[in-house]
């Protein structure tokens, strides 16, 4: 790693209590690509994401591309951090239309605009939604709008907290191609919290595992094979469960 590179990316260190839960993490997130943050529920994935965003204040240090967001008593408030956040459940502002939701952050962002509305709308397939109110949107549509809204706020870091976990299987399958397209276009780092192996396999460049408030091992390149981290016994179990559930092997695959 060269000297210039060591400043790029996000350094995040936290050691603090949330109630009786202790989060003790030291993590460097690469300046490009999607870093999946995985782990069982209750591991502190959401807490870590919120601490990086500044929504939860924990003792620690956050440096983004050499810009200090938190260090000692210095704490840059959330609205002054150039980050985008997609929450687990739909968090559209219900008093605004889809278009005004999309432009909420765009209008308030300072500096040059690298993401424009007519760029983000086709990228996320939002054309049929743009003129509508936020009522009666499906879960998948709402998350696509929330994602577009985050991108339009001109973030230099995108945080996504299990954005697909509240969706049914069909909506999830519908939205994944958009995320893959985004992955190819986006030049900013993304931290993507997930507990879904398929999502991680399809989207992530790097994986880091959190358990009981601590990192399990270092950041690793994502395995392309979702069955990779499983033992032979676990794969056999999965196969048996699939057969019992009535899923037939796909004859077109070898």
């Amino acid at each position, binding site marked *: 790693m060269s000297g210039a590179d060591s400043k790029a990316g996000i350094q995040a260190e936290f050691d603090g209590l949330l109630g009786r839960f202790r989060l003790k993490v030291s993590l460097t997130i690469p300046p490009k690509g999607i870093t999946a943050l995985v782990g069982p529920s209750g591991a502190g994935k959401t807490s870590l994401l919120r601490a990086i965003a500044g929504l939860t204040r924990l003792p620690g240090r956050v440096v983004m591309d050499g810009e200090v967001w938190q260090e000692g008593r210095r704490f840059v408030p959330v*609205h*002054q951090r150039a980050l985008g956040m997609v929450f687990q459940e739909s*968090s559209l*502002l219900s008093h605004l239309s889809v278009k005004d939701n999309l432009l909420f*952050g765009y209008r*308030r962002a300072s500096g040059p605009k690298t993401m424009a509305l007519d760029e983000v709308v086709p990228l996320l397939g939002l054309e049929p939604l743009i003129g509508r109110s936020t*009522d009666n949107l499906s879960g998948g549509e709402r998350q696509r709008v929330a994602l577009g809204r985050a991108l339009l*706020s001109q973030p230099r870091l995108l945080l996504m907290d299990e954005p697909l976990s509240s969706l049914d299987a069909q909506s999830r399958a519908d939205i994944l191609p958009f995320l893959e397209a985004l992955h190819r276009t986006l030049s900013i780092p993304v931290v993507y919290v997930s507990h879904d192996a398929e999502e991680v396999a399809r989207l992530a460049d790097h994986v880091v595992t959190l358990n009981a408030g601590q990192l399990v091992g270092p950041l690793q390149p994502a395995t392309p094979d979702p069955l990779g981290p499983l033992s032979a016994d676990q794969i056999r179990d999965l196969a048996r469960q699939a057969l019992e559930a009535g899923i037939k092997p796909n004859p077109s695959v070898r």
Partner: protein
Amino acid sequence: MADVIWTTLKLASLTTVLLLVLATPLAWWLARQKVWWKEIIAAVAALPIVLPPTVLGFYLLLLLAPSSPLMELLHPFGILSLAFTFPGLLIGSMVYSLPFAVQPIRNGFEAMGDRPMEVAATLRATPLNAFFTVAVPQARRGFLTAAVLVFAHTVGEFGVVLMIGGGIPGQTEVISVKLYQLVESLQFGEAHRLAAGLLIFSFVVLLTMFLTERRARKTAP
């Protein structure tokens, strides 16, 4: 008769506007604070609901009378007393209706939860900007309810206005006090017209509010 109605409407409108402005920061503080002792403040602000209007009127009268410590502070500015004046009546009405403004607005802010303000912050909105562009519109039904309740409550008040206002024609005489005086002097015809007018007015106000709430519920997700 016309000046009585005018005084009443002027009092109710001014009370509503001023009280919404003053109650909003208090309601916001009560909705967002996590400390337990905020409920002491909340209880004080809710006292006018349970106190007899005459108790409230009595203390307000003492407070607004020429010899009160508060009024003595205002003497250098040429204000000797606010008892039996329209500004005094306005202050009394605001105190009397305070809970009817604070409670619905607080409920509105609480119902919205923390998430919309967090979303606004991640979208670069300063706390003040987020308050006006997110929190206030999100709690708009609370504001509507507060406005209707305060207006109607002020039109309907009797004890406080009589104690502080004294019912001076053209200045502090409002419909409810006039009605009382008409009945006292056995002018039942006039009294009927005022009473029926107030009854119909109150009914229309409440019906409008319920219909608006019903429509808001239907369009809400």
